[in-house]
């Protein structure tokens, strides 16, 4: 309880982070409750195409007469879901590999780090495009593709943390009493290594949402689900006559990513107070 209180005390000092948390809460509520409170199917043709915002429909209709507000609410679910899942998977893969590499060192470390560097050479967005194209677009493939291109940075960070901890006295103590390696890694070092990793993986949610929007803009989104990137892609063809149609989902992406970035910075201030210089 006291740790939570200190955490909040430090977090709240960053005003941007508080605003970001509020904005994120609103966006989450809209994505979770919105489709229930506003149950229009985002693929239904509900009215005349190109109707202006605030006219018959709150945000107007798109090229096919579909309700834009319904698209925004349902699209938010998809973007946030993929963002969180992809970041979580990337974190788990990255931490697992980084922990093993950092704790054991030697050959295993060499092998895992060469693999990581190899992935850092491949242009990540292009790889994500290729992966989704090969395995057909769906929520699962998009999530996996984003996770596959995102884990290396977590792996590097986790490795650094584990190297910094592996020879500390408390770890040597654990070894001396015969504690198995997995227990030292998971229960002893992990809690100490987690704070910077949490920060990076929260910021990764933002990157993942940007990547997802780019993929679905290119037509590589789940064909059965509306997403913000897909809406921009559809509206792109009528940019000359109805620019707001592309503007609205873009603003939503911007606000969501901004909110997550602000929260990430607040987490950094609260979890890594010693790192806070600049």
């Amino acid at each position, binding site marked *: 309880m006291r740790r939570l209180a200190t955490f909040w005390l430090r977090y709240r000092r960053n005003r941007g982070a508080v605003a970001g948390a509020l904005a994120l809460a609103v966006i989450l509520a809209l994505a979770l409750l919105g489709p229930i409170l506003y149950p229009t199917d985002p693929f239904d043709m509900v009215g005349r195409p190109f109707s202006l915002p605030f006219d018959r429909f709150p945000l107007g209709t798109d090229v096919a007469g579909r309700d834009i507000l319904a698209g925004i609410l349902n699209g938010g679910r998809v973007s946030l879901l993929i963002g969180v899942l992809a970041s979580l998977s990337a974190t788990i893969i990255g931490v697992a590999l980084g922990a093993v590499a950092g704790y054991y060192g030697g050959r295993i470390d060499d092998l895992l780090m060469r693999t990581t560097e*190899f992935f850092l050479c491949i*242009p990540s967005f*292009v790889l994500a495009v290729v992966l989704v*194209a090969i395995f057909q677009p769906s929520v699962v493939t998009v999530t996996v593709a984003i996770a596959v291109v995102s884990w290396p940075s977590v792996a590097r960070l986790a490795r650094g943390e584990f190297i910094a901890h592996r020879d500390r006295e408390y770890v040597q103590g654990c070894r001396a009493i015969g504690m198995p390696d997995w227990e030292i890694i998971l229960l002893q070092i992990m809690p100490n290594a987690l704070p910077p990793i949490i920060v990076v993986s929260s910021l990764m949610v933002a990157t993942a949402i940007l990547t997802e929007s*780019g993929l679905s803009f290119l037509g590589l989104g789940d064909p059965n689900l509306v997403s913000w990137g897909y809406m921009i892609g559809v509206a792109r063809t009528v*940019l000359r006559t109805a620019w707001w149609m592309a503007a609205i989902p*873009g603003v939503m992406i911007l606000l969501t990513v901004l909110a997550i970035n602000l929260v990430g910075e607040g987490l950094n201030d609260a979890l890594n107070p010693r790192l806070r210089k*600049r």
Partner: protein
Amino acid sequence: MKKATFQFVLRRLLQVVPVVLAIAAFNFLLLRMAPGDAADILAGQMGHATVEFTEQLRREFGLDRPLYQQFFIYMGKLLTLDLGMSHLQQTPVVDLIVDRLPATLILMVSAILLAVIVGICIGIAAARRQGRLADNLISVAALLVYATPAFWLGLMLIVLFSIKLDILPSGGMMQIGAGHEGLAHVLDVTWHLILPATTLGLFYVAIYTRLMRASMLEVYGLDFIVTARAKGLSEGVIAWTHAMRNALLPVVTLAGVQIGHLLGGSVLVETVFGWPGLGRLVFDALLQRDLNLLLGILFISSVVVVIANLVVDLVYGLLDPRIVHR
């Protein structure tokens, strides 16, 4: 060249070989994981997809051999830069890529130059006004730009500058049918480059601004700046010569490692602006489900990143002798 320098260059060059081989192997793996092989696709397109015909194609392509043999054939072809044919355009993949690579390089280099120069200037300006209104405004703007999807920013810039104000072209690389030559051609391309390069570069402007500001503030805390002030040098001279030179290193380092990311961004930006580069080719390949072309682009762009990193490393090594002797 000194012996140590020569060894450094040689060592770095040799390190590239396994990476390129690994990329090739990875590509082969991806190709094999795709559902259906080249024979299926081609037979389907030719309109007579009988089992016999598909088998014949498979033999022609060597797809009936054991996997390891196929792998060696694939690698052998790669050595001669044979990436196979684009299924739909009936052109060697390499030709298509080589054709598009210059446009992408022009776009990427312009974007990164813009980002580094503007980012450094704004970052220095912010650091000199730390905590004041201008600094805060710059920080907020950087946060906003950092959260903006580049492809959407491109669309909004088109709305503003091409549709509403009608002062910049909305797409393409040159005016169609104008047939400019020499300087007029260069100017025409530059004119078409403004919006795409800004769109691609703005995200990095935000990154470099933040980095340069932080780096400058760190340098401002060092003793030699105190000395410079004690000598009575003006704040401008201190900022732009003494502090800047020392604060630049992290910015240049980052610019080097971001080439891969930049290439990914240019896929989207080129699609938005119809810029005839690799990124646009990715989009076309996607539309036509041309997997061979897509994998060829992945391979070549990875190699471009590896080479770019190599060049950055070598330049570093030559500029900073300490790295050579590591």
